[in-house]
């Protein structure tokens, strides 16, 4: 996270660009207004805010699962309602969305296939996908659980499987909703290191929802606090000196 590399990246096209966006489930009751938000390659952005304020809804809007009430949402050049092509976008939902009865490997392979098998009719996994899947499982410390069905894992282990699924996909944008919950300090470090390393090396962007503000500040380049239905761009202490506006 040096100043130099950031400067170069800032001039690239943003991976996410929101302009005058209102999000929510009812047209008459927008939850959050976002005047302007751009996320650049290699950048880590955290979202914090009280429970029920609309953090998950913001991620789901960027993922194209919820239509924005107004404004334009652009992800990797695809402006809503059109979506980025297969495998570009990785999502670790707050409720994980794992298949409970199948193995860790099967779940992670879904992500790996999405990222490395461009055919839309793929059922047979490619060897590349298999390689990335086992790498991701290793980096989440789950290599001894390969064949274990999800329902037999602990809550924190399940959360790591969901993270591994997204890492194996090697997407350009990772959106992770509370992906560090339920983890002890050491495991949290391991997960965070793996994800951060991927983001910095590949030039993907990471957008995380993290209700713990101090943890959010320590991991992110920027912290967005949603309060009263407005995103307040908040500059973390680490980078505040450099980017002082």
């Amino acid at each position, binding site marked *: 996270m040096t100043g130099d590399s950031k400067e170069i990246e800032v001039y690239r096209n943003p991976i996410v660009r929101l302009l005058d966006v209102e999000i929510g489930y009812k047209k008459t009751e927008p939850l959050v207004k976002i005047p302007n938000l751009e996320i650049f390659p290699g950048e880590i952005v955290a979202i914090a805010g009280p429970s029920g304020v609309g953090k998950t809804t913001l991620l*789901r809007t960027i*993922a*194209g*699962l919820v239509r924005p009430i107004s404004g334009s949402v652009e992800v990797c050049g695809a402006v809503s309602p059109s*979506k*980025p*092509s*297969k*495998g*570009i*976008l*990785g*999502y670790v*939902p707050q*409720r*994980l*969305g*794992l*298949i*409970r*009865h*199948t193995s860790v490997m*099967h779940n992670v*392979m*879904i*992500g790996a*296939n*999405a990222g490395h098998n461009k055919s*839309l*009719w*793929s*059922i047979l996994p490619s060897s590349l996908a298999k390689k990335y899947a086992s790498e991701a499982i290793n980096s989440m410390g789950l290599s001894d659980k390969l064949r274990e069905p999800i*329902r*037999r894992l602990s809550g924190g282990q399940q959360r790591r499987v*969901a993270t591994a*699924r997204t890492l194996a*996909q090697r*997407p350009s944008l990772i*959106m992770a909703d509370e992906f560090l919950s339920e983890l002890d300090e050491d495991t949290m470090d391991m997960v965070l290191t793996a994800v951060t390393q991927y983001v910095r090396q590949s030039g993907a962007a990471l957008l995380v929802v993290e209700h713990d503000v101090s943890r959010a500040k320590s991991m992110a380049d920027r912290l967005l606090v949603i309060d009263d239905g407005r995103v307040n761009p908040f500059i973390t202490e680490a980078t505040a000196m450099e980017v002082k506006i």
Partner: protein
Amino acid sequence: MKFNEILSIRGNFLIKATPFLIFISSIVVFNGMVDDWGRLSGSIDNLFVFIRESLWPPDWSVIEPQAYPICTAYPLIDFTCSTAWIGLLETLKIAFVSTVFGMILSLPISLLAARNLNPWWLSYSSRFILAAFRSLPSIIWAIFFVILVGFGPLSGVLAMTVYTIGYLGKLQYEAIEGMNKTPLYAAEAMGLSRFETAFQVVIPESANDLISQAIFMFEYNFRHGTVIGIVGAGGIGYYINLYLKFLQYDKVIAYLIIIFIVVLLIDMISIFARSFFTEEGDMPKPSWFHVILPASMIKK
């Protein structure tokens, strides 16, 4: 008392009285359909006469080898040349084949019929197809196919397959619609195609339900398969119909007892097999004891 208090008491009374009123109206409707209740009085006597003179004892010659064709099996297993064995086996085969074919054909349709995976026009038109297949019982389909392709198990298989598509398809799309939404959101965010979502997410996630429904359907098809032979669509029903026509009720009762026992067996095997796929699968494996006793009698 205020007016609305009186009203609420009366409303309450009406709600409690409703089951009673429904029962009374069923009696009234029944009475309207029966012209002469005197007919019932002779029925018990008729039953005893019928049992003594025609039904009992069952004629177990149905499990002896047929006179023709000559039985070539070992004497010990020569029951395999009997009409009961041949008919039963054919019914089992018809049920098996039509359950498998029905499942293969109903799964794609039910994937299209699930409202959580498809636009409304697609799901409702697929539901329409399934409802049409289901609207006629398999015996009516059997009559239809006997007319089309003639007597024999082929029309039985076709009839039961069509019905299976309609019935199993409904069970399947309901299971799919009941599945957890988050895996679908994750798949949609990743940009998986509908085909990939079906194979990698939907089918694995609802596999337990799908398997348990297919086992149930096999059991259902066997029970109904005993009937379709009556219209000439193969299976044990053919022989039952034959002896009914010749008024050989003691042979008919022998068949019915055999069917009863086999249905009971398949029922138990089906419950046993399905118990591996219904609940979480983390529960202790069921014992045969659990299968025979109703669940309510076993302390959890």
